[in-house]
């Protein structure tokens, strides 16, 4: 505590002296930033405690999905992506028909970005804010980043650890030209992988359809709209010129560019005016169905399609029943098993440490099981609440799926 306290005082002193670790934007870049989505990125001091951050990264199990955390790899039954990858490559020990079937079903957590040398490119302040309020960053990749239960200070410490070995990049010698960058963006076909929401850019290619058919580079390509919050300004041109030099193994290819062209592209990405994106609204809650709904349908379409991956029980598992049962990602075990009718009715460990029914009504009368599903829809449109949305990190359930669960509960939860 004392150590953290000292860092706070140091940070406050630096801010007071106008000596932030990152130069304040000015000129066109500043005005462009104000027109972008920066309002949702919390402005946090960029000083964190690396040692505390390492402990927090371990506690919140970033290495359960991400490579490059600097922590020892988790066993395959604890490593979401590793397990999926081993199934996809055929290395997983299971009968061939089962492997073939599972390969068809795996949509999420096939690929996640590596955190190796994240600090070479990413701003700690952005990482800290993203940990607390993740949003859809990679339009072609199904969302899988959970909203962690961390304070601002903890997020800052984690960001400090994740950016601990950031190589210093010398700022580009001169500012690039936005219009030349715009032309280069089209000529170099950057839009074949990257979206750039709100920018007037030619050659943007929307990748619709099954994400399993897309190349890794396309899946992991972020929407460049977020670059001005995410990326260290001084590193952007160097990154565009030679991504592998900053982060070896990155799926971002090296494109033949002169230094000047790299600066122009960086200028375009960082300073092109951005139109406000359309406001997102949570889908409307559908009325209860009039037809009878039984557990088999609820299980098939919702619980065993999504929920039980994290909320199972260890009897039938290679692992521990999942983070929703035994704890994970920094959350304590909720002992919630959604793998059978009886188990769903058996309840979960609530915030007060008491076993409670998942059907108990919340303040507005909505059953808890439905409330968390609605909360996830709200999170997706930037309205997180005290209730943590479920499925954690994954795309929200559809209104029809929630309607099914709600109807089943309202009808008395027929087996």
């Amino acid at each position, binding site marked *: 505590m004392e150590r953290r306290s000292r860092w706070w005082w140091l940070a406050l002193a630096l801010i007071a002296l106008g000596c932030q670790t990152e130069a304040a934007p000015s000129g066109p870049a500043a005005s462009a930033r104000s027109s972008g989505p920066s309002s949702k990125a919390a402005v946090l001091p960029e000083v964190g405690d690396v040692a505390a951050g390492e402990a927090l990264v371990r506690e919140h199990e970033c290495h359960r999905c991400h490579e490059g955390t600097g922590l020892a790899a988790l066993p395959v039954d604890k490593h979401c992506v590793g*397990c999926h990858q081993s199934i996809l490559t055929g290395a997983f020990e299971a009968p061939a028909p089962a492997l073939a079937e*599972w390969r068809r*079903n795996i949509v999420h957590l096939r690929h996640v970005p590596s955190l190796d040398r994240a600090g070479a490119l990413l701003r700690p302040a952005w990482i800290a804010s993203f940990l607390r309020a993740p949003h859809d960053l990679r339009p072609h990749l199904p969302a899988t980043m959970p909203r962690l239960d961390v304070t601002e200070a903890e997020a800052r410490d984690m960001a400090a650890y994740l950016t601990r070995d950031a190589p210093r990049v010398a700022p580009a010698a001169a500012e690039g030209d936005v219009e030349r960058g715009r032309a280069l963006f089209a000529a170099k076909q950057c839009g074949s992988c990257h979206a750039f929401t709100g920018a007037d850019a030619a050659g943007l290619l929307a990748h619709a359809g099954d994400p399993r058919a897309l190349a890794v580079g396309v899946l992991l390509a972020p929407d460049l709209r977020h670059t001005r919050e995410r990326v260290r300004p001084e590193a952007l041109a160097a990154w565009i010129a030679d991504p592998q030099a900053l982060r070896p193994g990155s799926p971002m290819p090296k494109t033949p560019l002169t230094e000047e062209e790299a600066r122009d592209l960086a200028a375009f990405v960082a300073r092109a005016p951005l139109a406000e994106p359309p406001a997102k609204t949570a889908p409307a809650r559908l009325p209860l169905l009039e037809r009878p709904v039984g557990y088999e349908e609820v299980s098939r379409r919702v619980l065993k399609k999504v929920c039980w991956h994290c909320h*199972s029980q260890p*009897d039938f598992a290679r692992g521990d029943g999942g983070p929703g049962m035994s704890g994970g990602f920094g959350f304590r075990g909720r002992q919630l098993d959604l793998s059978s009718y009886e188990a769903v009715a058996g309840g979960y460990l609530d915030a007060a440490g008491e*076993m409670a029914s998942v059907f*108990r009504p919340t303040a507005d009368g909505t059953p808890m099981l439905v409330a968390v599903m609605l909360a996830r829809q709200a999170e997706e449109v930037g309205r997180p609440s005290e209730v943590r949305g479920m499925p954690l990190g994954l795309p929200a359930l559809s209104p029809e799926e929630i309607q099914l669960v709600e109807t089943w509960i309202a009808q*008395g939860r027929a087996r």
Partner: protein
Amino acid sequence: MSRLSKSVVARLGWVLLLGGLATVMTRDGHACGNVTRLRTEQRAQLLVDAEDRLRRGMPVLAAWWAAQAHGPIDATGDDRLRARARRLLAIATTRADGDVALWSVGLLNYTPALREKNLRWALHTLTELAAEAPDDAILQTYLGEALAKVPEHHAVAHQKLSALAAADRLVSPEGYAALAGLHAEAAAAPSAWFLSSRAGVYHALAEDAWRRCDAMSAATCRPPAARGGGGAT
């Protein structure tokens, strides 16, 4: 053919029939570490199928399949699947009123003494398992059902099942049916342990429990004799 031979033939027939069913059954195929054992361990598959049969009101079949996953009834050891099989075997025995083949005897030669022995084993087993997992609503419900089968344990069963129902954690329609019967019993014939009860309240509670049972089973739970007034099961 001797009685023993008939028994062996009958069991062999069941093995062939159920084995064939197991071969052709399809399963959902969600990929995750949480489900891999279902596809890689036959015992896990047997248990899932046994639980499915139990839910569908076939406790004798459920017990038979669970017994295959469990192995000899006196088998011990730290084995999660065996513990689950044991739990399943015990509740299936309870719901089948003891008409299951727990020991080395034929399938159809039950006697009252054997049924009683089976039910005693089931109650003892569930009592042991539930003591190890006081927060496990499934085990507590199963134990409540088993206690409700034995008149001298009705008070404990009533208390246990009532508490689970009050927390909305009574996990099965069978549990609600047992609770309804206990409420009705309390309403109809207050005994020493129900001296402070009020018949009207218990009648209402019995009705509620029957309604929950009906809703959960999507059927009419109340036995014909009890329809029209919250009678005991």
